[in-house]
């Protein structure tokens, strides 16, 4: 219990004093996670829309695989990305291992199925509503996808936030591919793991509270900016 209070007090102190190391780690956490979120959303949302509006042979199989991959073990993703980016791997020549880019790649792989599955659910429901109208208007496939993505933007925001939540709290994969290198690839989660390993529970808890605060702040900011609770208007 003492550790909890110490952690909270230390978290407040670190935030209040703009501790340079904390700011650096938190900024890197945000940069890596938001980059992964943008890339993953750019892949997952059009994919989800395509799965909603197009009927093709392997559609159901792809949906089932995406749903199954929502529970993808991050450590395994980290391991696979490590092997691919290591010097002996097929992409070793790019020299990306132990860089923030490698961490972004791992996070993208982890959150694409999550965002795509949640988005697909909303897009499929809306497509059922819109189907007859859009067919009667002779809209092209691309216009259907654009219309659905725009009109489900609030549900897609929820999908993106779910992806953000998973990515910012992720530790296994980014620890493996990032290496938790100070001033290079250390982020909040890997720093927490490190401090816990060193036995500095108060600092680990402080970083944990900062991480929670950051996640909540980003969620609130996105909700506020997109005015998701504005009633009766679009």
């Amino acid at each position, binding site marked *: 219990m003492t550790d909890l209070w110490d952690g909270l007090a230390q978290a407040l102190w670190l935030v209040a004093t703009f501790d340079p190391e904390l700011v650096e780690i938190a900024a890197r956490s945000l940069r890596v996670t938001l980059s992964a979120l943008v890339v993953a959303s750019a892949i997952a949302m059009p994919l989800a829309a395509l799965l909603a509006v197009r009927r093709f042979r392997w559609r159901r199989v792809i949906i089932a695989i995406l749903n199954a991959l929502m529970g993808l073990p991050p450590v395994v993703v980290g391991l696979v990305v490590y092997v691919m980016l290591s010097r002996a791997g097929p992409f070793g020549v790019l020299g990306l291992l132990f860089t923030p880019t490698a961490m972004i790649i791992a996070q993208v792989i982890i959150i694409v199925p999550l965002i795509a599955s949640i988005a697909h659910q909303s897009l499929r429901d*809306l497509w059922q*509503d*819109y189907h*007859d*109208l859009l*067919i*009667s*208007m*002779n*809209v092209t496939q691309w*216009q259907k996808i654009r*219309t659905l993505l725009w*009109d*489900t933007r609030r549900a897609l925001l929820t999908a993106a936030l779910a992806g953000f939540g998973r990515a910012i709290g992720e530790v296994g994969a980014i620890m493996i591919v990032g290496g938790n290198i100070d001033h290079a690839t250390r982020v909040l989660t890997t720093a927490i793991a490190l401090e816990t390993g060193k036995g500095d529970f108060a600092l680990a808890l402080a970083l944990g509270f900062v991480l929670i605060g950051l996640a909540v702040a980003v969620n609130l900011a996105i909700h506020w900016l997109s005015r998701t609770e504005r009633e*009766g*208007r*679009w």
Partner: protein
Amino acid sequence: MSDLFPLTVRGATTRRRGKVLVGPVDLTLSGNGACVVIGPNGSGKTTLLRLLHGAARLSSGTIDWACPMAKARRAQAFVFQRPVMLRRSVLDNIAYPLIIRGTSRAQARAQARDWAERVGLGDMLDRAAPVLSGGEQQKLALARALIGQPKLLFLDEPCTALDGSAMREIEQILTDAKAAGTRLILSTHDMGQARRLADQVVFLLRGQVHESGPAAEFFETPRTEQARAFLKGDIVE
């Protein structure tokens, strides 16, 4: 006369899981005005409209317009019994057909504003379309269908569940559209509405055209026993 017509339907049939929903239908539609499709529940009115519009799959037979099918489809619009509202404002709903055809957003919105005024939705342009009342939604659906200046407008029971004043407003919009040269093909259960709007009547029974012809002739001297019974309000199956 519109270059879509005459519309010639020969042996048009649609089946689902082996069961015939509509057909075989033989029909020729030409001229202007409104063609009203009537018939008891389950007689295939909606399916016939969807077939003609190309929104339902034809199992056998042919549907030929006076122009190529793709061109005919572009000249048509469809208003559904339960209006589909895009999750957008009233203005953006009405502007949508123009925007997907490549009209600039500003121009589309200007025209949409004009149409919203015409159908009596001018004071609710920024309202979310899905929260409008049934009558308002149907008026919006009509404005959205008419903004593209279709040569043919399909309407599937457009006034179902609307009260008298809303129905009068919808019928006025349809009468104006008809006067402006838009051909109407609509299904209805309301014989009063059929009498007010129809220039031509198609009476469907069990998925087939039982009787068709000029409206005045059909309502004054129906040729078949079933049509007479239906007009009297008797139960016809």
